[in-house]
């Protein structure tokens, strides 16, 4: 950022409830495609407008943002009373090119699967290039931007703010990159194209009410009830790991780490109940529970360390 400015910009009007960049995509957890996005954005040589655009994004100056295939429109509040209308359009694929691209993608269910869980396999870019379509934007070729602000420079700080926000969203949901090229989620999954498509059957009706069969006050069970196993395993918080972090997570605690801790603590209590021992909830024996949980986490880590990966 240049140290001296030729003019000091007027302070923009404050927006309430604007979209705020969370900056979650920075730091060691930055994904490669977010890094690429930022590199491209920085290569546009915006100078001081880059920094201002970032602070616009962070302070929520963007009040509305709409993403359509190949087009992003936004309202950005500047110093003027009316927000500026900004627009970025991308070169979307269509027609035969799109068809062959989709055919190529559908050949790779695992790639699509990873895209659907917010992962971006690097070969995606190659597949787009092979189909003659750019993946990340390049200034001259495939990207046009307009803004109603009086600034003659393009991209202006308003467009820069939009770029920032898009970078954030892309880090969370790389499918957005495909959407900008006109490829939707539905395209990836495929239309209901075959007659043989099996619709999910109606969820099985709940079993008939057997109350009539048992006395009003109940009857002893015929067999020992089956509570299922509850062995210690490496699988702490299996469902959370399966689902991954909540998309667009805005909390200040790290979602997965915190959840793993919480699940470990709950499992300690759960195991007591499962085993049929009397439950002691009198004191907030936080320490015991937390100790039990960290022991479990430690064990898991030891086991994971001993793996050969």
């Amino acid at each position, binding site marked *: 950022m240049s140290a001296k400015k030729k003019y000091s910009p007027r302070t923009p009007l404050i927006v309430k*409830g604007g979209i705020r960049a969370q900056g979650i995509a920075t730091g060691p957890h930055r994904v490669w495609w977010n890094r690429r996005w930022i590199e491209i954005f920085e290569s546009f040589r915006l100078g001081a407008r880059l920094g201002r655009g970032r602070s616009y994004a962070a302070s929520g100056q963007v009040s509305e943002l709409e993403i359509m295939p190949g087009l992003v429109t936004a309202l950005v509040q500047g110093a003027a009373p009316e927000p500026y209308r900004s627009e970025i359009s991308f070169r979307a694929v269509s027609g035969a090119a799109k068809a062959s691209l989709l055919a190529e993608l559908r050949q790779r*269910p*695992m790639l699509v*699967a*990873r895209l*659907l*869980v917010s*992962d971006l*396999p690097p070969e995606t870019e190659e597949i787009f290039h092979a189909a003659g379509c750019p993946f990340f934007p390049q200034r001259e070729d495939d990207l046009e931007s307009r803004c109603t602000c009086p600034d003659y420079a393009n991209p202006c700080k308003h467009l820069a703010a939009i770029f920032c926000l898009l970078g954030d969203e892309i880090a969370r949901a790389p499918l957005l990159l495909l959407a900008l090229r006109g490829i939707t989620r539905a395209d990836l*999954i495929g*239309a209901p194209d*075959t007659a043989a*498509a099996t*619709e*999910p*059957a109606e*969820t099985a009706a709940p*079993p008939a*009410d057997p*109350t009539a069969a*048992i006395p*009003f006050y*109940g009857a*002893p069970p015929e067999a020992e*009830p*089956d*509570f*299922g*196993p*509850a*062995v210690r395993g*490496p699988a702490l918080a*299996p*469902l959370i*790991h*399966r689902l991954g972090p*909540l998309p667009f997570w*805005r*909390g*200040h*605690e790290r979602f997965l780490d915190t959840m793993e801790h*919480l699940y470990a*603590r*709950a*499992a300690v*209590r*759960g*195991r*007591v*109940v*499962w*085993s*049929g021992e*009397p*439950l*002691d*909830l009198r004191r907030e024996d936080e320490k015991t*529970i937390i100790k039990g949980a960290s022991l479990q986490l430690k064990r898991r880590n030891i*086991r994971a360390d001993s*793996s050969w990966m």
Partner: protein
Amino acid sequence: MIILHTIWRDGVFLFWGESEASPADAPAPDSGGVKISPYDPGLAKLTTAVGCLLWDDDNKISCSETELLLPSVVVPWGEVPVPSRAFLADRLNAPSAISFVDDASHPLRLWRVTVAQLSWRQTLTMLSACQERRLADNVFAGEDLLACAAIFRYTGALVARGKFLPGLRSDPAGQSLAVWESAQDGEERRRFNSLAERVPLAVAADAPRHKIVRTMLATLTDRLVRFSLVTTLSRAHAERGRFYSAHDAWFAALRGDSPVIRWEADDELNELRDALDQWRRPVEGGASAQTSLLFHLEEPDIVNSANAPTGRAVSPKPPQTPMHFSSASAEWKLKIMLIPAGQCGCLGEASLPAGEDARAPDCVLPGSVYPVRSDPTDPIDTAGGTPALPASHLLPFTSYFLLFSPSLREDLLITLGQAALLFPPLGRAAQQDGYFGCPLTVNEAHAFLSVHADLLESAGYAVARPDWWGAAPPGAVTLEADLLEPQESTPAFDLNAKIGLTWNVLFNGEPVTQTELEALLAAESPLVFFRGNWMLIDTRRLREALRLLTRRQEEPVTALQVVRMTLGLDSAGYGLEVAGCKGAGWLDSLISRLDGSKPFGLLPPPPDFCGELRPYQVRGYSWLVFLRRLGFGACLADDMGLGKTVQALALLLHEKAAGQSRPALLVGPMSIMGNWLREARRFAPSLRCRLHHGAERPRGEDFDASLKDVDLLITSYTLLHRDYADFRRIVWSGIILDEAQNIKNPGTRQAQAARALQADYRVALTGTPMENHVGELWSVMDFLNPGLLGSRTDFRERFWHPIQAGADLAARARLRRATAPFILRRLKTDRQIIADLPEKIENRVYCPLTHEQAQLYQEILESFQNGLPGLTGLERRGSILAVLTRLKQICNHPANYFDDGRPLAGRSGKLLRLEEMIEEALASGESALIFTQYAEMGHLLRRRLCQAFAMEIPFLHGSLSLKERDDMVRSFQESAEPQAFILSLKAGGTGLNLTRASRVFHYDRWWNPAVENQATDRAFRIGQTRDVMVHKFICNGTLEDRIDAMIESKTTLAGEIISSGEAFLTELSNEELEEVLKLTADEKGFL
């Protein structure tokens, strides 16, 4: 007595109770409004009953009255509710118990009852405490409460398995709540449904009931998880923290006391809700999806591969023992298949057809079969056929998934993508040569097998591992000790003797050489193909083993250590499991006797033993001596009636003969102390016994002095803890705990006291099988052999929980290996024992009198004796017969003499002992007949036993109609559960067939054995498959005792008694009469 029930109302559990109704409770016929239920226990009783299930410092509860819909029935004076047990209505003077049978035809009416509303903390405590019908003395759980407790226990299981997710819901008031919700897949739903079906109308009267039970589960899940997460800090944060996003507020509310999210912007909350629903969709969608994913790992085909794999053969003798090392280029295949959902749960049901080729790895094609393990915890049962899934149910991924509808396809793809997040190498999956999936390196394959397969499985995916990867993967490194004969000739059985040994290293159970070990380590591969099998390489253990072999310097160990190693309790400090020890003369024979592979030597009965020991009793006694010599505690757990007492007495005599001068201590329930004294006098008259009991018992220094001439001190569990200071001071020669299940709960004072006493040897006697209650085993074993099973926490982690999970067969085997040498249990049904036993075993149960009984007895006797000298002829006879009846009634129960309506419990020694013995019989699944000659006593017994066990116990007596008798007999004979049945000797003594019973109690005596035998034969007749135990109750030191002794003496007098019955007493002189009737001094008020 109170039976506790629960009802789920407005999102909380309300607890209420039933007690027996008395005529005073009967609702007035025409009082308006909703009447109070006649069984309502009232506030005080309910509070006490519920309170005793809560923790002492959190048992304040609020009660109120509410109206419940209960099935009701009309009796002549109006309408009453149908109680959960018919006997509760006994004293309502209703015409017949029949109308009180709980069936669905009774109309529901509103009744007022007292309910306890607990805090959630208390509710969860309460539900966790309700695991059995009997909750505390006189407090029982209704089936409805037990069904809810089972739902709660299942909630715990779900939480322990991590099957729950955070969510966001709105309450009716429109507030947004951050909640924890259970997430169930097909398998979990099946479990839940079978538990939910048990929840009766009493809990949730409204339809649809399934939905109500689901709400119950959701609420319990949220509460249980929340209570585990709330900390002082998180509570404060949830209540007062400042949040910067709806996400933060939601995250905090998940850990607050209240689930309400403190965030104003509704649209953001709605957005978050949508995001959460979208996020959870794969799990929830996956649960209802028709298809799920199966990952199948296939090993490289080393055996059949023509051009041998790139691995090297390094074994010294390559042709016989090929040892290949799977190098990085050997290709493992992870195949991805589709599997119809719901199949995961029933994989085990499909069985593998005969034929080896069925297991060939390359036949994953529709129409063929290959093994799939449904559950990693399932035992690998190679003999019974590997649980397998017909491959026709497996669909190749690529060709099928396009056939699905878009929404299913999306679910499936998301599921697949998530699997790749759990196991990153899956991200490379693509259509390969012949399968969809990805090749893995050996390191990746190892990681998959050891960690990620479990992870995938618990996340709901199906995993098929190679069949050589069992619950314990091949490649265990264990040690075997070769013991050397001790240098100098040490005396036998010296457990401190030092013994030299050499170690052999076993790899997967087979000896390996140092060279082989080095080669295994040098391969630097986690999986190695060794001697025709894939083995897991545990580098740390292999290095340890190698170090042991190279060092070649083995320190001698003590014989005791060897014994512990044999039991799997000592790793000799090498961190490796010791699989066995061999060699070394006497030690070897000791070990083989301890682990039961060789019988221990039988001893001749001790010289002073009066009477005869049956062969199995000689065995038991010799075993007790054998363990005692080794310094181990022993638990003799023979079935009731096999004579544990005499075996213990033989041990005591043996000790005395061996020169023991210090006293031994016997602890038992109070009701059997007298019995012990009597048996000791009979079988071991040389043993000097003393009872430590009563208000005048010696304490302090007197106590020490009183032990001077005593071989055996007999006391009760109550006094064990009360006079603990005195007992603790003495170093006893031995401690014997009778009815050792009294210390099964290690937290009780008596258990703590028992464990803290000092003694040379320890013996526990119990008739209840302990091996079924793993949790209770620890306390008894820790008393017998302190530290043997480790601390309670260790025990819980190592044995209890794994065994309870039903998952770890190895843990069960380990526990058995460690405890089997110290528990001897013979059943009456053992073929060996049966050969030793008559089919009908009779014993006498000597019961003490209570103070009340003794006092009454004395009063009656005195007034009789005062009047006697003036009487003659018929008057004298009449007076004698009358006093006989009265005294016998007092021996039965004071209320049998005069029923003033006071509670029956605790007033009669016989009744107390009967309750204990019935409890034991029912616990071991045996039904019992109880005979009495007094109809009033029969009614009293029924009243008390119904209360004591909260179950229906019928009484068959003369004033019942034939039909009623038939109904009783039929329901007794056909009952699946063990039952008790009271009969009057006259009405029930003949004709009936009651072979369901294998226990017969004669509560009072009819002095003609023929009459008693006839009654006994109701059970002991054709159709009886078990041996019958007959218990005849006798009050110590009373006329019962003496008349019984006379009959036993088999003199002419005995014959007279038998032929003329009690009338013979009228022929005795006043002095003789006094001798028969008097109450022996030390029996005055035992309890």
